[in-house]
């Protein structure tokens, strides 16, 4: 029982990591919490569904479609919403993503209807090991999550654009002296962060049923993860997601429904006591 709980916890945790990765990246570099991130995830799932089930084009194309479509959505958002409001009031920054969140959820309901849809399971079957069971689809999800996190980490640490992005987030002026433009980094980061949300939607959506409202909970989970792990730290987000997954798995097993409150308490306590999370770097939101 305990082993199964741990396995469930790790699986759930990796889901959270995947969902939170995009949000963490965007926040770490742009200092914006994209409250519409959950809707990006939801739309990723829907794009996947449309391409796979309605278009019949197979898993790889469907997955790619969700990544690219939402990546483009992110670019449009950065250009159209974030750029004009750069540095303006808090209402502008928070309000914009809240407005986008509502807009996308409403639009999605109008287009797809309020009902649940089942996405066909491309990876049927169940793995049994040492007394625990694990659906193959989830194993694939673990694989994709791990691959994505590695790719993200590699990009930000080893590539030119990733290093440039880190430079801009730490010291915009110094970076500009070296010819690194913040606007290009912002665009790139928003694109990648959103693409990650799309990837999460394409990967996780099929594990459950999908509907236009499925973005709400993932957003909260993502916020919890980045609070735990440190806003802006990819390593922290990975660890934070796993911790949350395992803690929740045990809490649900032994406490039942009230376990959901733990996530919220984590946010509150951490932001009071250690706002930089376990691994991130603190900074001030001056006004």
């Amino acid at each position, binding site marked *: 029982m305990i082993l199964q709980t741990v396995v469930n916890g790790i699986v759930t945790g990796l889901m959270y990591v995947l969902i939170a990765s995009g949000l963490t990246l965007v926040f770490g570099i742009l200092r914006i*919490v994209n409250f519409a991130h959950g809707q990006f995830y939801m739309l990723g799932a829907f794009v996947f569904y449309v391409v796979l089930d309605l278009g019949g084009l197979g898993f790889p194309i469907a997955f790619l479609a969700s990544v690219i479509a939402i990546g483009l959505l992110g670019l449009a958002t950065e250009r159209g*919403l974030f750029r*004009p*409001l750069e540095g303006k009031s*808090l*209402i*502008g*920054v*928070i*309000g*914009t993503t*809240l*407005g*986008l*969140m*509502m*807009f*996308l*959820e*409403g*639009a*999605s*309901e*109008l287009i797809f209807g*309020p009902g649940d849809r089942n996405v066909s399971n491309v990876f049927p079957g169940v793995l049994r090991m040492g007394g625990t069971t694990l659906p193959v689809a989830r194993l694939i999800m673990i694989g994709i999550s791990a691959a994505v996190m590695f790719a993200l980490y590699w990009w930000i640490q080893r590539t030119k654009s990733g290093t440039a992005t880190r430079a801009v987030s730490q010291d915009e002026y110094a970076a500009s002296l070296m010819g690194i433009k913040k606007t290009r980094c912002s665009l790139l980061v928003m694109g990648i962060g959103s693409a990650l949300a799309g990837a999460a939607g394409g990967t996780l959506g099929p594990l459950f049923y999908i509907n*236009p409202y499925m973005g*709400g909970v993932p957003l*909260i989970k993502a*916020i919890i993860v980045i*609070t735990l792990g440190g806003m802006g730290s990819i390593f922290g987000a990975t660890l934070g997601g796993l911790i949350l997954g395992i803690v929740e798995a045990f809490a649900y097993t032994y406490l*039942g*429904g*009230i376990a*959901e*409150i733990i*996530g*919220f*308490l984590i*946010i*509150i306590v951490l*932001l*009071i006591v250690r*706002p930089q999370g376990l691994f991130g770097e603190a900074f*001030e*939101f*001056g*006004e």
Partner: protein
Amino acid sequence: MKKKAAFIACAVLLLVMPFLIRDDYYLHLIILSGIYSVLCMGWVLILRAGQFSLGQAAFLAIGAYTSTILALKFSLSPWLGLVAGGISAAMVAFLLGWIVLRIRGLYFAVITLAFNGAVQLIPANVDYLGGWLGLSPIPPFTLGGIEFIDKTLWYYLVLALVVLCGLVNWRIEHSKLGRYFKATANESLAESIGIDTVGYRMLAFVIACLFAGLAGGILAPYLTYVSPGDFALSKSIQVQIQSTVGGTGALAAGPITGATLLIILGEVLRAYAKGLEPLLYGLLLLAVIFLLPDGLISLPGIIRKKIQNKGKA
């Protein structure tokens, strides 16, 4: 002179409204607008003191559940429940504020968001508080032997609360208190001239949550039930959107305008398709942020200026 006449006309209109609008459905919408107006007036007050709250629905819940528990389990009059609801919401706000009001900006917003989520889960998972299904039926107010069944009576009760909160907000705006709230935006300057920034933020927060608690104490008996689903995070976001769309520059007029407009519009749109309401909220918020940052109440002023400029040209 013109302003006074308009003001008196509005007041008269508000007083006779239930006799002009005989349809229960529309009266219901107006009553709901009133409840949301009160929530929005609180939100705007917190904003004036420099904080961004995403948790007002939590205090609505505290007011609603307090008054409901007192009525159902302790047989107390809803009038006492109303007062108790306001006071308990204010007390919780004080305790929470004590810990978190020194935190600014986005972090504070996220904390209030998490607080909202947590508060919603408490009655949902406690049988005594009704679980997810909630508690009902809740006895209505009675005054002079008359039970509040007719929507007209509810209308006047809500109107009284809206007027009370509106007066408080209006007074604050035009007094030194409002100026001190605004001054906290430059924290170091304010502190250097002796303004207790955290103290004033606390005052704004407590007053705003008192408003929300009172609103909850009326909402619960009005709906005759209380359930956790009514106090979700989306409600707090709606409050923020209504306030911003209405206009955050005027502490009374802006929120009331925004809440009323969006409740009524939202209801109308929902009759056509459920997805239209969040779509409307999202679009209007984005439109206001980009095109009309001071909200709808700034529209008359802008139009007047344009006409004046056209006249000069």
